[in-house]
């Protein structure tokens, strides 16, 4: 095990993702991946009286579902790595406080699934823990309220805008067991090419995604074709085209192998989401639901999951700041 190249860690004893559990809202369930989600929500409010409380309940249900599916008790989990999009990551706080598991609250914008899986696999591979949990969530209405307009406000969305996924994904990462293994990770650095348009997050994140992917390939001495798929978090339809284009300009052809959770989760023509899905819960639910199932069935044997985040707040962009992107790569193999 060790630090390899510029910013990659290759595990000699790869941690194992022994179980995964996903929850998704009604719109996500109606999408192309609907059958793959474990917990299919009927109601965006989950019986609560606010969007924020609904997202906490979403996390709670997902973690309970994961414990039940893995036949584990909360005492078996040694650490919990989680975060979300709400201010002060309160969705995670109130969703997880009653589980009594030591908690690391994370903020990596929509890259949180990658960030939590990177940290969880490091703590397990480093011998600090045997069984930990990592995951994230997002909620369309809570994100709209915090970052944009009230949900019932009658404005038009830009064509480059993406639809925040109401969903959550959590995984169990274990020192031993059966399942797909995390053989390497490449934590990403922040990349800022000067995008200021909050309605085009794909463009803000694409350079970070490409930077992390190319660095991972170089550090581990691999080609894009060594992977069955390289899957970014939420670049969306426009962002993924930009990513392929700039990777090409930098001398690597990612076309054919690069895909995106935000592109997979919705049928844009039927569901009118404009540029696809976004949010922490996008890569979270698509990995824990669809991709994990494909790995178990060996339809995919080696993937690079690259959740992507746009680092901004409504205040930062109003003060004229640009939107730096960040992306964390997790290499997952199924023997």
């Amino acid at each position: 095990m060790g630090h390899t190249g510029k910013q990659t860690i290759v595990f000699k004893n790869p941690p194992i993702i022994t179980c995964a559990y996903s929850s998704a809202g009604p719109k996500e369930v109606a999408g192309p991946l609907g059958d793959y989600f474990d917990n299919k929500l009927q109601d965006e409010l989950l019986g609560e009286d606010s969007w924020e409380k609904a997202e906490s309940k979403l996390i709670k249900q997902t973690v309970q579902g994961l414990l039940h599916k893995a036949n584990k008790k909360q005492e078996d989990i040694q650490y919990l790595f989680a975060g979300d999009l709400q201010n002060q990551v309160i969705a995670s706080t109130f969703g997880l406080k009653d589980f009594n598991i030591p908690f690391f609250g994370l903020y990596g914008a929509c890259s949180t699934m990658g960030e939590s899986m990177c940290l969880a696999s490091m703590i397990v591979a480093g011998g600090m823990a045997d069984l930990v949990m990592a995951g994230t969530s997002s909620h369309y209405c809570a994100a709209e309220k915090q970052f944009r307009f009230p949900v019932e406000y009658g404005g038009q969305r830009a064509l480059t805008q993406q639809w925040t996924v109401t969903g959550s994904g959590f995984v169990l990462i274990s020192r031993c067991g059966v399942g797909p293994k995390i053989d390497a990770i490449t934590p990403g650095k922040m990349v800022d090419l000067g995008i200021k348009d909050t309605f085009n997050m794909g463009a803000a994140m694409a350079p970070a995604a490409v930077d992390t992917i190319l660095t991972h390939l170089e550090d581990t001495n691999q080609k894009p074709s060594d992977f069955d798929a390289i899957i970014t978090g939420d670049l969306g339809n426009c962002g993924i085209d930009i990513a392929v284009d700039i990777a090409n300009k930098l001398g690597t052809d990612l076309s054919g192998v690069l895909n995106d959770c935000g592109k997979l989760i919705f049928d844009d023509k039927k569901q009118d989401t404009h540029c696809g899905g976004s949010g922490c819960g996008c890569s979270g639910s698509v990995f824990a639901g669809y991709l994990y199932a494909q790995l178990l069935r060996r339809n995919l044997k080696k993937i690079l999951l690259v959740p992507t985040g746009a680092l901004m707040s409504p205040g930062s962009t109003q003060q004229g700041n640009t939107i730096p992107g960040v992306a964390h790569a997790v290499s997952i193999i199924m023997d």
Partner: protein
Amino acid sequence: MANMKQIKNEYQEIVKMHSPKNKVMKNSLRAFLVGGVICTLGQGLSNLYMYYGMSKDASAMVTTVSLILLSAILTAFNVYDSVGKYGGAGSLIPITGFANSMVSAAMEYKKEGYIYGMGAKLFTIAGPVIVFGTIASVIIGIIYYFV
């Protein structure tokens, strides 16, 4: 190792090339249609009130109130956001859009209490319209006074 800085200069162009373009003609036609329907409805109401004996001034006032009420009800029943999505500026500019911006904020922030939630954030969207509308009317008033 390929360096991101290599493409920084041309990046804005790359983004522009891959971003979907707004359909200005289609959007303008829809805005014209929806805006026109709202205005025709207003005129119809105004004529109706005058038919039942209201003065012109009174009917204008009651028409405004009626449109605000209608917009508030449609917002509460999750309809106005769909009208807004279709009509764009056509449903944003009339007084119904103004009412929608306030009712939607009220609905969203009610959960945080009537004082610090709804009361404080009711004008989140409508606030600038009132501020700059008032300033503009003061300036126009001063000009009017001297002309």
